[in-house]
């Protein structure tokens, strides 16, 4: 794949694999530091959900060959997941970054090595979303990361809206409000 422009801004560093930069909810032209939940990463690795880990490595962190950190170019940000809730504040606090990367990543194993992420074409009619929490509740769970502003809990490709292929299907019913 050639010709795609790469996002610019602070580069995510392989020395800190859980830390990534994303546009601020308050000002999309400013980047803030997010922390990918240790529990999420560990569960994915322990369950051998390799494609999901490759998507984190390639599409969110990006510090791999051919990586495409898509957060700095996020198309939209929504707040509040509409679903049956027990902890009202928690679902209201979830923010959903919507990105449209031109690539996906899958795991390719080889005989010579342990294998790794490989760049492939993205799923059709889909957008890539990243779920983050900016609440104090989420930040209280972090150890000694004073300048972290949010926590990433999940990420996935979702079907795109038939009327707007850059947004998730049913976005107006799924989320409480669009931040930008």
């Amino acid at each position, binding site marked *: 794949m050639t010709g795609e422009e790469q996002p610019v801004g602070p580069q995510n560093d392989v020395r800190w694999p859980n830390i990534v930069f994303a546009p601020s909810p308050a000002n999309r032209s400013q980047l803030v530091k997010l922390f990918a939940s*240790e529990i999420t990463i560990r569960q994915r690795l322990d369950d051998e959900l390799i494609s999901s880990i490759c998507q984190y490595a390639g599409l969110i962190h990006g510090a791999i060959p051919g990586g495409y950190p898509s957060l700095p170019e996020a198309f939209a940000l929504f707040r509040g997941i509409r679903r049956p809730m027990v902890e009202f504040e928690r679902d209201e606090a979830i923010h959903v970054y919507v990105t449209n990367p031109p690539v996906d990543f899958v795991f390719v194993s080889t005989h010579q090595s342990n294998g790794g992420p490989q760049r492939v074409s993205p799923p059709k*009619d889909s957008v890539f979303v990243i779920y983050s929490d900016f609440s104090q509740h989420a930040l209280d769970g972090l150890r000694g990361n004073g300048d972290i502003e949010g926590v990433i809990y999940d990420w996935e490709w979702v079907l795109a809206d038939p009327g707007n292929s850059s947004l998730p299907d049913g976005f107006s019913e799924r989320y409480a409000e669009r931040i930008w």
Partner: protein
Amino acid sequence: MTDLLDRLATENRATRPKDRFEPIARYYPEMDLLLFLNEECSYRSDRIDPFLTVLWHSKDERLVGLKLKGFRFIFEQAKSILELREDAFLPLVKAIEIALVGSLGELMMKRAEKDRIERLRDRYEQAKQLAKKISVPPDEWKRAA
């Protein structure tokens, strides 16, 4: 070898993936959802309703898993009806994880696939009915040709 994958494993106290996937059902507390996946691959999420999302293979038209969302909410509702204690939550989650890997997951996916085909059929039928009402002026046909 990918340094970032090694670092992710080290920093998050996990083992590096070795491409030995087996179908899983797992509860993710931070998103309060139960994931069932019977094939390790990139997938697209298709939200059916606030409780259920089905997962389609990223390239092929086949279901590879599903997500049950708001699991804690369901438990809280059941708690009062069934007089459950809080310490019943994790065993209940485990029971459903086992059931999903057993055969429940496959049954739910087959049902979701059948429902989708019926929904598509309805949409096509609606589109056909609409098309019958549209009359295209002859000039437009000439332009199209």
